[in-house]
């Protein structure tokens, strides 16, 4: 593997991990809202969350570009107020991956929260636990396998994200050139087949490791719940 390829692999891992971890708290919060609460605009929120799943990724990327780009309203505000820049940076790639993976994350967590018996939550309430404690001590532990599944899906989606990323932050080696972008680049130059094949194998290996890791994690949580 060439240094260029290693850089792309490292960058992809960084982008996918950042995207997953940063979106996890929001994903859990929105999944809980959708699963347990009734409020005005719930349907709209649900649609908004799922939009990246049905829109062409290029469209999502373009929407990110015009809103989070340097001249976009949100991008300009974040730059001036906090000095956070997304456009043409690896952080932008992470944002694109987080947005694309979010529907998968929320969906998995929401389903597992809905499977938690509300009668157990009510029982915890009568024992003195306020809603936040009920969530932390009953709902969250019982839906943890779903949270892990959602996070793995989001991570896998992020590792493979291409359309939105390349539209939003382009394909800059060392900054925004993730694994799929580099594979695409290889397919566009003569003699790039070997590199593309190497990265394909790496991609398969990472996906399988992620799946295996989640399996082990889920089992360890199962064991810990037994022992608790």
């Amino acid at each position, binding site marked *: 593997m060439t240094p260029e390829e290693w850089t792309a692999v490292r960058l992809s891992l960084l982008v996918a991990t950042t995207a997953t971890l940063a979106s996890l708290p929001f994903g859990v919060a929105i999944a809980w809202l959708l699963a347990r609460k009734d409020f005005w605009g719930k349907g709209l929120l649900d649609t908004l969350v799922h939009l990246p799943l049905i829109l062409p990724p290029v469209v999502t990327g373009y929407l990110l570009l015009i809103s989070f780009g340097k001249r976009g309203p949100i991008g300009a505000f974040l730059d001036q107020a906090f000095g956070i820049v997304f456009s043409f940076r690896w952080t932008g790639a992470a944002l694109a991956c987080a947005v694309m993976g979010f529907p998968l994350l929320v969906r998995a967590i929401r389903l597992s929260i809905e499977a938690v*018996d509300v*009668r*157990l939550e*009510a*029982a*915890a*309430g*009568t*024992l*003195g*636990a*306020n*809603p936040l*404690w*009920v969530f932390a*001590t*009953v709902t969250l*532990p*019982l839906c943890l396998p779903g949270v892990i599944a959602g996070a793995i899906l989001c991570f896998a989606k992020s590792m493979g994200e291409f359309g939105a990323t390349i539209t939003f932050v382009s394909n800059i080696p060392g900054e925004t050139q993730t694994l799929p972008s580099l594979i695409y680049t290889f397919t566009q130059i003569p003699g790039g087949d070997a590199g593309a094949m190497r990265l394909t194998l790496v991609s398969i290996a990472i996906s399988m490791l992620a799946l295996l890791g989640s399996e082990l994690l889920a089992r360890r949580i199962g064991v810990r*719940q*037994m022992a*608790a």
Partner: protein
Amino acid sequence: MSLEVDIDHKRGSFQLAARFSAAPGLTALFGRSGSGKTSLVDIVGGLIKPDRGRIAVDGQVLVDIAEGVFVPRHRRRIGYVFQDSRLFPHLSVRSNLLYGRWFARETAGGAAADLASVVELLGIGHLLERRPDSLSGGEKQRVAIGRALLAHPRLLLMDEPLASLDEARRAEILPYIERLRDEAGVPILYVSHSVAEVARLATTVVILTDGKVTAVGPVLDILPLADGNDGGSVLDARVSRHDDAFQLSVLTSTAGELQVPRLSAPPGSAVRAYIRSRDVMLSLRPPQDISALNVLAGKVAEITPTANGAQADVRLDCNGDALMARVTAKSVQRLGLAPGVPVYAVIKSVSFERS
């Protein structure tokens, strides 16, 4: 302790309108399925917000809709034992028991000793490290009772805690609930549709019919009115001795001596005998050479024909105790039953419920 309830709540076409106040001890909320018992305890426990009304425990107002007061369930300190125990599946029995203690710190003086005494009271010491899904139904309910107690409640709600259990498991738990009533000092609101359970456990009875409170009072006065089809009488008695050769126990009451299937309670202990009206036979002369072991002498006090006139409820005065008998209208005429007529009530020992 005092519990005052005065609420109205509409759920679909069902209208719940309950007004009562409960004395210390165990108050049984009695009624058929669908009479609104569970909704009522859910409202007291804070699981349902009533449309209108007021609930106060020990003078503290928990709900007053007109004043905009609604204390959320986690601040009520009302323990709730559900019909379906609702133990946390991801926690051990010990962690389940201690769950409420986290949130009751301000009142938890010597909580470790508390765990020990509750575990001893309920006989669940050997279960502490187990997981809820490996427990039997009766064990689960005992753990659920312990969990509610350890949250230091000022009132304990029990919604048919024995309904999902078979006869043997019920017999296993009933003594613990009796000890709870007599030793733990926590007032209990106990939902049941079983006359036998109410007769054995209750101090006060609240009868709920189609969402309305139709009677409130001490168990001995109220239970005979409990249900037209399943009416009966309660006699306060004391175990005088056991007849081990025939597996019988001999009880003494004001009305006379009763022989019932062998009880586990030791001689000298107070028990309640519940006698169904339809298990009582009447005779004008002392019956001889019959299999029934119990004959109580008394006088007819009152005869109430049933709605269709085919049968009648005869209330007897047996040396001061009231005993109800359900007989046919034909028998009333044939024996010439009328207030003041001396009769003998015959009760088969095998008709006593084992509780």
